[in-house]
């Protein structure tokens, strides 16, 4: 295998007549911190779902950690960690039980799990709350717990789909401090989508996606030069235009199409 953790070729996803992702190709090197940004409804989450085996591409191929995301789904699944845009914890169980279930789902040996969970909980300052029911957690605490959970099985690639959405600036900064600490300690490839562009300033490479197509790619420095701007925020506006995107419309359109084709987001 070459040194790529992710390789997408001619990736396309259509929902009926709506093309969410239109023939995109990109690769992410092992150990890279990769930013994947775009306006609402641009196709970010659809792409991540295809990379993470939750959605079958209409066309194209995806390799993750050397495994085919269409033909070797279980191998891809074992080797990735996913932090979803929306919460995905079992809020009726304790933090520790959530982690324990995750460890079991990924066949992490018990003693290894305990050591790893303690370490990670410590890293995000949740050790004291590990026996609390998740329902009692604040939004920021839930996010931190989800990050711990996503890292528990030593994934080689970590997908962060808007990991700091809806959090206050203090919590956002805290979460990034944790992630930075973690990156310094372990060799993991990260693919990040976000609307907080300053978070991408430290990325190795960034792809900007708009209307299902990658319209710009490069290091933050390259992109700033290309668009003659001094911040990623300004680059983003310059590249994707200043108009407001109506996600409501595209999501509605998408679900209408889903109903027609019977193809929900979580098919396969």
């Amino acid at each position, binding site marked *: 295998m070459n040194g790529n953790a992710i390789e997408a070729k001619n990736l396309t996803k259509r929902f009926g007549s709506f093309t969410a992702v239109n023939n995109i190709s990109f690769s992410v090197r092992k150990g890279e911190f990769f930013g994947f940004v775009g306006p609402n409804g641009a196709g970010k989450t659809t792409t991540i779902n295809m990379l993470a085996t939750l959605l079958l591409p209409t066309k194209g191929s995806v390799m993750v950690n050397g495994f085919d995301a269409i033909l070797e789904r279980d*191998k891809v*699944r074992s080797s*990735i960690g996913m932090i*979803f845009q929306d919460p*995905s914890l079992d809020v009726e*169980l304790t933090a520790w039980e959530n982690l324990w279930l995750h460890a079991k789902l990924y*066949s992490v040996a018990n003693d290894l799990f305990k050591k790893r969970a303690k370490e990670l909980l410590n890293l995000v300052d949740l050790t004291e709350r590990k026996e609390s*029911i998740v329902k009692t957690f604040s939004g920021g605490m839930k996010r931190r717990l989800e990050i711990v959970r996503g890292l528990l099985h030593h994934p080689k690639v970590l997908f962060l789909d808007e990991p700091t959405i809806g959090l206050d600036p203090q919590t956002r900064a805290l979460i990034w401090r944790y992630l930075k600490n973690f990156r310094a300690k372990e060799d993991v490839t990260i693919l990040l989508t976000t609307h907080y562009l300053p978070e991408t300033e430290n990325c190795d490479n960034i792809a900007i996606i708009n209307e299902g197509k990658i319209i710009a790619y490069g290091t933050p420095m390259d992109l700033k030069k290309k668009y003659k701007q001094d911040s990623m925020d300004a680059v983003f506006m310059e590249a994707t235009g200043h108009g407001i995107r109506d996600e409501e419309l595209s999501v509605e359109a998408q679900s209408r199409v889903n109903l027609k084709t019977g193809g*929900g987001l979580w098919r396969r």
Partner: protein
Amino acid sequence: MNNFLRGVYIIWYRDLLRFWRNKTRVVTGFSFPVIWLLIFGNGISASLNLPVSSLKYVQFLFPGAIAQYLIFNSMFSAISILQDREFGFLKEVLVSPINRSAIAIGKILGGATTATVQSLTVLILGPIIGVSLNFKMVVLLIPAMFMLSLVLSSIGVAVTSRMKSLDAGQYIFQFIAFPIVMLSGAIFPLHNLPLWLDILTKINPITYAVDILRRIVFENLNLPEPVIASLSPSINGETIRFGYEIIIVSGFTLVLIFLASRAFRNA
């Protein structure tokens, strides 16, 4: 442990864990059979006689009430799949390297286990309405109840794996659970029914599962054999034998488990 079995085990275990967390639900849920048996059962008993002498309606209703509570509990636990979808946990499971069929089977077993445990509480009401309990009856009832709730959990999982929203859950009760209960002989004896109703009750496989429960209860009540047999479904005047009922129900269970795990592959 084998990968598939491990998946089944984890999903089953989680259901038990959540059940244990929600112990209050067991207590509040208990009001359902109390109302059903003590109020409805005794109320009907007061003014109606069964075509079978030596048995009061409320006693006839006892195994039916167990069955009904079991059916509703099994369906209710299948709806937790819709909750998992709504609140996101299903994504965590679907992105993990666990076989999809293992998830479905774990869910079915989890639902059947918790429904059986919860429905066993109805037995406490037996002595109040003149159905005395004995050890043999309870020991035989547990596997029979488990089998019935396996069927219902499988139906529930097969249906909910296709549904996208939590709101759709109420239709499961309206269009599946209620008709199944009404047509199973759990509420009224399958005697002298109009032909169309007679046919519907006999093609309902749950009828035979309910009858298994009823035979276990009444045989241990020392009711005369012809009385028990007269309550069982019959075809051409021949009462269907106990062994055949077990074959019908277990066959139907296997088919449904298969269908549910297939449906979940596309969940």
